């Protein structure tokens, strides 16, 4: 007997929803095996990662963290998903996130110590504009010269990281910081602080922005002609061109939007949970958001759930790190595995597995 793949006439709706769940389960099993190989109790490790933060003894502390970590992931992934649907591959969200943080914090640091209501909104605009500008570099180069946006957007991540270091050590360094690298702490600057809206809930303006982005993307994709063009371009590029869709305009829109959203995410992070521009400000949200986008099936509500799940692995991973001594790298690998298994089980969405006898397979 031989396994044969048979293309489905249409993607299976059932497997569209089942495959992410199956991927999570398989990842848990493989992750358990990995943790066991590292000499940890696999059941305890998996429970620590997925159960402890939500239902454990200290859940009151961890639950707000879920929103804090989930918001940037969701915000970035929503932007990425628009491009991924249309075949525009922005994988430099990490760089756009850094630049958004720099421009947003830059506005605050330039206006310090002035107190005014308009400072925070101005920072949001600046953060979005910074990310937008950084995202437009690969977009414009692609439109004008046909340059590969994957490579350019990724190269710009390294450029942004160097720029971040230069800023933290140079122009944005705290003048009262006794020479230590890093900017003033924006948490101590009331007009610029992205504080919790309800104390102890973890709910800050970034979470609000993420929810708005989810709804916005849902309406755009389901109800607006632009969203239709995005989906059409992804599924049938030639048909889209005959229908009058401009691939160039779409490239600019997708990279610009995802850049602006990633920039906003960076700004909310630097003004809130992190507080300051420092050399190690970015922690890879821009890359993890790629996993979130695919795990959420590029669908806004799916991304919402996937973002929370990914946030859970971050928080649970930290708990497992301190309680069980599980290395941080194991969690990183765990997240990478998730994308692998997701892509692997996705074959079931588009193909049917059939067992055929050897003789027939040879024919």
């Amino acid at each position, binding site marked *: 007997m031989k396994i044969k793949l048979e293309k489905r006439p249409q993607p299976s709706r059932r497997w569209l929803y089942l495959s992410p769940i199956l991927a999570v389960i398989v990842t848990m099993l493989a992750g358990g095996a990995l943790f066991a190989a590292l000499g940890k109790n696999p059941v305890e490790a998996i429970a620590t990662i997925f159960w402890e933060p939500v239902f454990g003894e200290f859940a009151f502390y961890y639950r707000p963290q879920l929103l804090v970590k989930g918001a940037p992931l969701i915000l970035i992934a929503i932007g990425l998903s628009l491009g991924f649907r249309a075949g525009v591959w922005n994988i430099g969200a990490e760089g756009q996130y850094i630049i958004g943080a720099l421009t947003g914090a830059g506005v605050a640091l330039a206006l310090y110590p002035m107190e005014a209501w308009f400072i925070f909104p101005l920072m949001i605009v600046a953060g979005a504009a910074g990310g937008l500008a950084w995202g437009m570099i690969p977009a414009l180069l692609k439109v004008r010269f046909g340059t*590969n946006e994957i*490579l350019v957007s990724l190269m710009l991540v390294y450029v942004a990281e*160097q720029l971040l270091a230069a800023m933290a050590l140079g122009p944005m360094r705290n003048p009262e910081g006794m020479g230590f690298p890093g900017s003033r702490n924006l948490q101590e600057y009331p007009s610029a602080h992205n504080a919790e809206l309800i104390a102890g809930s973890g709910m800050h303006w970034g979470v609000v922005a993420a929810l708005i982005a989810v709804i916005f993307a849902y309406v755009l994709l389901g109800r607006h002609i632009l969203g239709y063009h995005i989906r059409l371009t992804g599924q049938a590029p030639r048909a889209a061109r005959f229908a009058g869709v401009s691939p160039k305009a779409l490239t600019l829109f997708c990279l610009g939007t995802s850049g602006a959203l990633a920039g906003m995410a960076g700004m909310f992070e630097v003004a809130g949970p992190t507080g300051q521009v420092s050399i190690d400000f970015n922690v890879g949200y821009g890359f993890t958001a790629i996993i979130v986008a695919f795990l959420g099936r590029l669908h806004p509500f799916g991304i919402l759930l996937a973002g929370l799940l990914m946030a859970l692995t971050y928080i649970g991973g930290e708990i497992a790190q301190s309680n069980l001594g599980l290395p941080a790298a*194991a969690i990183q690998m765990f997240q*990478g595995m998730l994308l692998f298994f997701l*892509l692997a089980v996705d074959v079931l969405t588009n193909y049917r597995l059939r067992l055929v006898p050897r003789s027939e397979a040879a024919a």
Partner: protein
Amino acid sequence: MDLSSINPVLLLASLIVASTPILLAAIGELVVERAGVLNLGVEGMMITGAICGFAIAVNTGSPAAGFAAAAVGGAGLSLLFAALTQLALANQVASGLALTLFGLGLSALLGQGYVGIKPPPTPKLDIPLLGDIPFLGPVLFSHDLMVYLALALVAAVWAMLKYTRAGLILRAVGENHDAAHALGYKVVRVRIMAIAFGGACAGLGGAYLSLVRVPQWTEGMTAGAGWIALALVVFASWKAGRVLLGAWLFGGVNVLQLNLQAAGIAIPVEYLSMSPYLITILVLVIMSADKSRAPASLGRVFHASQ
């Protein structure tokens, strides 16, 4: 600033060393792309090779064993990509990204006990007579075996693609997989072999970083070298000879900016460190005008039924 402190002989000699890791990774990826597969996981395979090679070299005391292990590690990881894209017919861009994310995590996990250790030195070949030639001797003939192996590999790939039947089949598969399938060539098998070759080369390149160029292990030490290798393939218009030229260009930029840093030029270090990435973008812009050289089936999914 003292530019006279930059010695041109040392500069050129270190250019050759600096270009070797990306040269190895790029020549492997070139073969993969000529077979019609776009593997964006070069960075992940490189860093996995870097730690596999480092760990084995430290434990056995033999750099040669380390390089062999790096090739095996890189090829092993690339087979995951092959399984995803060739057997499960997954999207190549997404699978390549997954490979890179996974490889970065895997290498960090494997490398935990190896931070701050010095690897056994890789011996330099002291070629008699040739090594004594003034200027050319130290620039060209005073390196370790891997440098020459990388150059030989480029020549071998060039000759294989141009003159052999295997090269012809590989190119046929990359240009039009349906036609190649109709002629009876095993498209999937050819591609899996190409992917494994690319993985082994990327692994070797990574090990060259951790064993010779740096030489030590730090998390994320490849710092985009794998992506630069991918850009190099575009730069080279999918031609083996031009990969060599590109690798020297990037190696040269990197060595030059490091030398300028050391010479204390009045530009902050961070801005100099950006230059290899900015040059890569610039080169991509210049080279992208001519897209005609890209293998026609690059990145497309092959399924025999269609």
